[in-house]
């Protein structure tokens, strides 16, 4: 039985329900290393911003799913993930926390808590809803 662990803005409606291990990408070098590893498709990518440039090469090659800690469907990453049809849940918050992202007014602890709880976990994305995307914990973690 899977349980919901986070939710956020759904970039676009899709029946795709990708499953993968959450991988937090912090720097461009993390992005390049992931590409070179050849394991891109195994992961649901977790990033802090909702911009396209940071994830550009993985979007181009084809990501399995994306989680962001800021941004909205109107942000550049929301637009491009829709065009690539890459499921994307934006500005996620942990369902067991009251902490919410506010543009320009969110301290690092908010982001660190999300990374700590999700990085390395096996999750499934539910992106069927018009507005809310949901992140479910899958059967096991790595």
């Amino acid at each position, binding site marked *: 039985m899977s349980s919901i662990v986070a939710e956020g803005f759904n970039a676009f*409606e899709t029946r795709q329900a990708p499953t993968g291990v959450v991988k937090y990408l912090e720097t461009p070098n993390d*992005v390049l290393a992931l590409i070179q590893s050849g394991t891109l498709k195994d992961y649901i990518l977790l*990033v802090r*911003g909702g911009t*396209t440039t940071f994830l550009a090469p993985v*979007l181009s090659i084809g990501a399995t799913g994306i989680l962001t800690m*800021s*941004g909205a469907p109107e942000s550049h990453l929301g637009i*491009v993930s829709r065009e690539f049809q890459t499921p994307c849940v934006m500005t996620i918050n942990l369902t067991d926390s009251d902490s919410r992202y506010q543009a320009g007014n969110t301290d690092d602890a908010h982001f660190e808590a999300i990374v700590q709880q999700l990085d390395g976990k096996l999750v499934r994305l539910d992106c069927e809803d018009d507005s809310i995307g949901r992140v479910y914990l899958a059967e096991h973690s790595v």
Partner: protein
Amino acid sequence: MSIRSKTATYLLRYEPDDDGLRFQDLTYEGNFVGLEPVPDGILGDKMMRRRAKTGVLERVTRENVLRERYTLDEINDLNNYLAWNIWDVLVMRATEGVSGMIPRQEYEILAFMHEFYRWPEILRMTTDEAGPQGVIDIGATARREIGTKVNCVHDWCIGAVGFGMGRCGLLALEAIEPDDYVEESNEILKFMQRVLWGKRQDGYILNSQDRYRCRVHDQEILDQLLGELEDFEPDEPKHDAFTRFNAAATLLAFLDHFDCRLGLGDTGPYLLPDGRVLIVRDLFTNEEEFHWSDVCDHEDVPHCYTVVVVIDAEAMGLAEIRVNDISTTFTRPKNYVPYITGGAVFVREKWNTPMGEVRPVALHDLGAELEKLQQATLKLYGKLARMPRRELITNGHWVYFIDMILPHLRLAGTYEKACRDYDLWEIDQRVSNYYYEITKRKFAQEVVPTKIFSGKGYLPFSEKADLRSSKYRWL
């Protein structure tokens, strides 16, 4: 379940009494403290226009547009409307936070302020060279061309960014007073109005005034584009090839323009005789003025791909479609990609390639084009990843400061003169010094975005303001 087939209702949005859908829950107040909050979309446009003191937000005549100066009330009406329009198109986008790659908030605010200071004399010189009618004619070229940066987002940026956000940022920095630079504000806003009016030629200047329609292309151009249209079913390989190409070109267009919207230009929606909806999308994948575009040159990536997108509105159950004033299409439901049932792709090699030499690319040949886009994207990413923060901010600032007026100066024949005689590619000393100020007290990350997206920072000109005034006192 959200993917469904049902009857489209989007045509109801064009009925005069219809107020459109709400795309977001937030509301806007701006300078109208105490009045009913204003929502996004068609209803928001109606409310903002009802609050105007003048007719500048209604359909205006050529004679009106050719006038040298606005009245003070007209400038304040434009200021208030643009402030709402900026909120309408950007308030949700602006939640995207840090890039991890490009310090966008920092380069944006520097560029806004630089534009407000330095564009006025360059736009005045261009108006002097081309004449007011010539500026209108520059806008009108967009009706006959694809792959042109004389488009919604560039034209809108002249006023909304150069005047609106630039003045807003300088007011927030307390570098200027509300009644400073009235003459310069008029210069910027008149240039914007002339270009936009010439492009639309229906009396309006903004897509939001026309229920988010930007149907500017002449029928002759549309017929040429549709002559190359290839129809397909959503489960055919052609659909996948077309949509993957569109996505990859969109991505590189964003990247080449440092993660800003200047790389993308939609027009439409055009209603086809068979009931489907057409969007014409220019994707500027190689801007030759940017030195980092050398990687695009190496991969033989053209200046622009124009992607013709045809959507089955009925199958989608399309409820509203907006081509907003930064040239971007949003729909309800959000996901139109599975309902694309026709497409065509055109290449404009250089910005000034004659329209007669713009060539189509058959969908079965898109694989080679996709490979070029992917290689250029990877190389450009590696190049940007090696740039120091200061260089990223400087270059991002150039994208805004130069590219927003570049297409108009090119067509006016004044770009070289602006570079040579007006030092266009130099950074004003005031703005150079602001570089050190904008990271203090969360100025770029919090203060300015709050002013810009709450609408609180677009202070009106007072009744004492003089239309002839610049800034005379630095006290």
